[in-house]
């Protein structure tokens, strides 16, 4: 693999026009990845789902080179018609279209970076991999006091042209004081057996609001790693919603740094799994300042021989007095082969805090099924109704009414 990485890297550098600074950073990142390789279960964070093994078993040899010079066609049929929206279309890890037709153009600053932040924590080698092979990074800056009028939908498309390929993608958002944005990240995969590695950076200024909804619904055999890093200043709010169901394997990682007082982070997620899918949500909420708040609700419905994992960590710094942190994970196992693993973790160094977590897993409540059946429903319908209600709980947490309606229809929950 090492040789393959090196030749693919050289090919990428020779066919693209990166700045010297970028090439230098990319080389460092590559060396870091070469040193550590793909993470495996020996690392605490990868204990439950060993990505190294899963890639080897399902893909085998990966190609790391991705031709960013190809013009990809976009099929307009896949665009969501129910709501008016701005678009970013990404095909095979390359940004093909950016349209902010509903917004005031002088309030948004779009630029392509010729520099990037080096992976701050060395132990996550996938971020290094992303840094070394991703294309030039787009940065979207929302100016002071501006709120997006319409949501922004990021279409992440893969097409048949790629297979057994590692696709790396990065996007940055900066939200200045008092600004706000609503994002739907919509995955649309027409490819099979690729390893897709995404990194999103969000920087929230004072009073900024970020609403980020991630939808992976279309069934495919890709393996995905998706990392969102969110830093928050005073009074800012971030809301993340994850619907994870389509791909063969996804690990969604959300890391929130609450750096300013009265900032708050909400992370809600659904795992709706069947067949032999492996999905994981891992959250890291770091309370670094006084009076911050975080809330997490993760629910899983696990059928066939699929596997759901939730790892959530609340960290409270000794400075972060008056922290309010809450985590709840619940799982319903529908089949004997299904598996649920959880590691809800608290690491607390301040005394005046209110932190708690809960986790429950088991089968559907027999009494509830009986109740519904005694009122004339057949067993199948009764079960569906209960699962529907179980998951609806999470969807109801979405604060944007228009998007909530859209997502309910999309997921099929009423």
């Amino acid at each position, binding site marked *: 693999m090492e040789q393959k990485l090196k030749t693919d890297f050289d090919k990428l550098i020779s066919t693209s026009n990166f700045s010297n600074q970028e090439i230098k950073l990319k080389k460092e990142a590559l060396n870091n990845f070469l040193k550590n390789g793909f993470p495996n279960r020996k690392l605490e964070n990868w204990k439950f789902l060993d990505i190294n093994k899963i890639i080897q078993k399902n893909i085998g040899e990966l190609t790391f080179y991705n031709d960013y010079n190809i013009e990809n066609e976009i099929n307009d049929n896949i665009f969501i018609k129910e709501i008016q929206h701005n678009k970013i279309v990404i095909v095979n890890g390359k940004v093909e279209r950016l349209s902010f037709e509903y917004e005031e153009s002088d309030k948004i600053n779009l630029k392509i970076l010729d520099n990037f932040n080096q992976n701050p924590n060395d132990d996550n080698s996938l971020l290094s991999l992303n840094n070394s092979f991703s294309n030039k990074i787009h940065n979207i800056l929302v100016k002071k006091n501006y709120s997006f009028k319409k949501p922004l939908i990021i279409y992440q498309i893969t097409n048949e042209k790629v297979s057994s390929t590692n696709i790396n993608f990065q996007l940055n958002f900066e939200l200045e004081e008092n600004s706000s944005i609503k994002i739907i990240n919509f995955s649309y995969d027409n490819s099979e057996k690729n390893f897709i590695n995404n990194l999103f950076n969000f920087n929230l200024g004072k009073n900024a609001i970020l609403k980020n909804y991630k939808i992976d619904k279309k069934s495919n055999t890709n393996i995905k790693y998706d990392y969102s890093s969110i830093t928050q200043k005073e009074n800012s709010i971030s809301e993340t919603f994850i619907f994870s169901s389509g791909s063969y394997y996804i690990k969604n990682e959300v890391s929130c740094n609450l750096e300013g007082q009265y900032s708050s982070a909400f992370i809600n997620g659904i795992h709706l799994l069947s067949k032999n899918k492996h999905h994981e949500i891992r959250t890291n909420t770091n309370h670094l300042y006084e009076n911050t708040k975080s809330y997490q609700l993760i629910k899983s419905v696990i059928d066939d021989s699929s596997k759901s994992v939730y790892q959530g960590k609340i960290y409270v710094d000794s400075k972060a007095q008056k922290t309010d942190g809450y985590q709840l994970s619940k799982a319903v196992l529908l089949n*004997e082969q299904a*598996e649920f693993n*959880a590691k809800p973790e608290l690491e607390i160094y301040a005394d005046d805090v209110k932190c708690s977590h809960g986790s429950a897993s088991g089968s559907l409540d027999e009494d509830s099924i009986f109740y519904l059946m005694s009122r004339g429903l057949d067993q199948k319908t009764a079960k569906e109704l209960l699962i529907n209600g179980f998951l609806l709980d999470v969807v109801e947490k979405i604060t944007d009414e228009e998007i909530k309606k859209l997502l309910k229809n999309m997921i099929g929950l009423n």
Partner: protein
Amino acid sequence: MRDKQIEDLKDYKYGFSTDIESFKAPKGLNEEVIKFISNIKKEPGWLLQWRLKAFERLKVLKEPNWQKPKYPKIDYQDLYYYSAPKSFKEKPKNLDELDPKLLETYKKLGIPLQEQKRLNGIAVDAVFDSVSVATTFKDTLTEKGIIFCSISEAIQKHPDLVKKYLGSVIPITDHYFATLNSAVFTDGSFVYIPPNVKCPMELSTYFRINASDTGQFERTLIIADKGSYVSYLEGCTAPMRDENQLHAANVELIALDDAEIKYSTVQNWYPGDKDGKGGIYNFVTKRGLCKGKNSKISWTQVETGSAITWKYPSCILKGDNSIGEFYSIAITNNHQKADTGTKMIHLGKNTKSKIISKGISAGKSDMTYRGLVDISNNASNSTNYTQCDSLLMGNKCGAHTVPYIKNKNSNSNIAHEATTSKISEDQLHYCQQRGLNQEEAVGLIVNGFCKEVLQQLPMEFAVEAQKLVGISLEGSVG
């Protein structure tokens, strides 16, 4: 009055050391030392082979380092692996032959070895450094067919039982410290309860580390045969010394069909001084196997001592309908560190487990609850309930919760809750309004916080533990 009491208790009152000449094996860890230990204990050949096999395995094992409390590297070659009071070369036949200094020591510790002075009817096996000193109430127990003696004695007198069960729960292929213990264990207690016998009294062991530079490696083996019941207590102290001392014991419990074992620990090893100097490293492996149907194992622990506590008393629920319980209070103050919790491994059908853990951290200490609940594919209709609460006093300490939850069975339910908070101002205000001073109020509230666990302890121990909870937190409020 209370102030004086507190003043007396504030310092570690078990911190004295007894000036008894001891007889030690040469320093260091090698085959010679293992042979020396085996030889001096007149062990049969199979046991020496067993020890050497463990030692072979130890050579390839690495010390684990995933735990939260880090500690400086231990030089295993700089330790004495065997230390016994000199007068023990010929084991005394009865209490009258014991070195009076030893009796004095145990009197100071409040352990009633002299049967005539016994008030509460607890049979005690006391372990001083490496050697089991005396076992009381032997006759009463023998009548019922109960075997309660030191493990060295059991190896001589009941080799079949020992051979059958030793290492059956903690094999020599286990983790580093357990394997180290298998190679060099010196003494400990052995209990066998015959079928359908309910042990008429609490059995108890008292561990004491006296000599410096020694590690204490006991091995406790408790077997409850079909339909029997036993309640077992364990207490520990050590003198104050500047250097850290290692305590790596192995405890194995085996419950056969319909048997029940209740194992309680009040651990009060020397925690080190206010600046974190000295103290015991308490790296103990405790594991119970519910081997038979309808069996039950219950662990209760009050952990207040040791510089570092690192242990996870576990239950393997193999028999159908078996039950595992874990009740724990862990208190850390000053520079103490604890990483403790439990493992509940559900293998049989209809197995149940319950975990109640209360952690209190004060001063500059660090406390971690780490636990595993694993329900396997075959363990249908199993349930687990876990509750772990942490209380923080001051903002220089830490409290962490790291539960691992694995559910592989769709007919089984796991519920887990954890909270972290401080003592509420309202509760403090309420108590102070009624005339308690702040320390008394805190003591009262903390005792209430721990009550669920304290209730599980046998009566005599519960009182002691309650006092210990109060003492451990002195000076941490305000």
